[in-house]
């Protein structure tokens, strides 16, 4: 299917065409969003189509491309995983920060430029890891290019222990056993409900990056399928209250039924990052 790419290829065509060169082992059909390893992968891929050094990409253009992608997916009613939507919300926020003329600098929170730099850095780091992975896998590998003695005569015991077992074996045995014994095989049906935990994770991820008042739900909901909005609103609200209680979030609302603004609270946020 990806075979016949004519000269009159649309940008999207070229985009997919490029993905063939990503050294994937998957079949050539990369059109599926599932072919991407998450939103950052998709962004990296879009960035490459800009064909410049990653440190110099136009983050704004990139954000737009991404948002358009999500937009298009929505138009044809493709269900995107929540990760992608969170990224969309974040980028929409970033875009608004970049487009609004620089105000008097407030102490709280990174500027649009700083956020853009963070994104560029993350992309560059991911790309670096990709390249490292490629170099690694192309090394001369034992059992493929280089071989050990085919008929070993004697295996010396390791540090004098006469029994062989490693941590993985141990954990594997334990996990299997406990799982077997956990008699109740609970099958949880996939529901169309956003759990508190999910909502909490999403909020924390976003709040890790955003520290001034934002109508976060507004950004988030914008990118959710209509069917999900009610449950997402409810869960996000409940989760946000929980986060407020823990001091990780602050909430402000001008009046009844007005937009709810949130920002990172004084408490430690989520702990997704950290050295």
């Amino acid at each position, binding site marked *: 299917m990806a075979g016949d790419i004519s000269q009159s290829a649309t*940008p*999207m065509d070229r985009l997919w065409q490029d993905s063939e060169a*990503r*050294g994937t*082992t998957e079949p050539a059909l990369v*059109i*599926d969003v*599932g072919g991407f*390893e*998450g939103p*950052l*992968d998709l*962004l990296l891929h879009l960035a490459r189509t800009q*064909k410049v050094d990653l*440190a110099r990409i*136009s*983050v704004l*253009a990139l954000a*737009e491309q991404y948002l358009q992608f999500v937009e298009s*997916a929505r138009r*044809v009613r493709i*269900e995107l*995983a929540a990760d992608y939507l969170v990224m969309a919300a974040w980028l929409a926020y970033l875009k608004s920060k*970049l487009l609004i003329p620089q105000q008097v600098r407030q102490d709280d929170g990174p500027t649009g*430029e*700083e956020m*853009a*730099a*963070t994104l*560029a850095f*993350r992309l560059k*780091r*991911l790309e*670096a*890891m990709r*390249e*490292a*992975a490629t*170099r*690694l*896998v192309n*090394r*001369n*590998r*034992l*059992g*493929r*290019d*280089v*071989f050990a003695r085919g008929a*070993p005569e*004697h295996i*010396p015991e*390791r540090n004098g222990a006469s029994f062989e077992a*490693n941590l*993985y074996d141990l954990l594997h045995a334990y996990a299997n056993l406990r799982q077997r014994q956990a008699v109740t095989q609970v099958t949880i049906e996939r529901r169309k409900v956003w759990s508190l935990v999910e909502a909490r994770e999403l909020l924390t991820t976003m709040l890790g990056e955003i520290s001034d008042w934002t109508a976060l739900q507004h950004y988030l909901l914008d990118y959710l399928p209509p069917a999900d909005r009610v449950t997402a609103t409810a869960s996000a609200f409940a989760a946000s209250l929980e986060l407020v209680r823990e001091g990780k979030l602050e909430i402000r609302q001008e009046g009844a039924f007005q937009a709810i603004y949130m920002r990172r609270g004084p408490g430690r946020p989520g*702990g*997704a*990052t950290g*050295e």
Partner: protein
Amino acid sequence: MAGEREPVRAALDLEAERIAEALVFASAEPVSEAFLLERLPRGVDVRAVMARLVRLYAGRGVNLVRVEDRWAFRTAADLSFVIRRDETESRKLSRAALEVLAIIAYHQPVTRAEIEEIRGVQTSRGTLDVLMEAGWVRFRGRRRTPGRPVTLGTTPRFLDHFGLEEIRDLPGLEELKGAGLLSGRIPPDFRIPVPVSADDLSEDEDPITQLDLEELGLLTPGGGEGE
């Protein structure tokens, strides 16, 4: 006295070489120096013996290689074309698994949250399991920070498999470190891109225009990460 070692000494050295050679040759797994030391004549310098053997086998079809403080004989890499067995490549790593492996190797000790931060996506179940089962990745310990998250790292077997003497030999490690790309933070000298406003795309940028995904056959049922 650059000259010959005394005969007794020389005989002892040769004997040590032969023993070390035999022990390492006999085993398919790398053999530790401690193990060799135990079995070599008293007072022999293991490192020196191994260094001589490395030289002796350097040009041969089988080479003596070091993996951290262990030694193994391996066929010479340039002979891969004659010995290479295609059927052995049964366990092909998925792209995700390979990426996670690289991140663990270059960033170790690293927590799962950090891996996910770098990849921007949840690690699907089974990815780590595959790497652990292959014996390349292991739990290392716990980070001494709140929550004490478990850290991951590579094993000696990983080094052996990819032909590395030690972690420092990972390709490009120094450059990546120098560029600040192995840290969780943006390096201070990281260039902050100047955002161009949406209207003026730079010359080498194409705006993505009307995307007709349907036409492209993008209509796949619920893609996403899935497990």
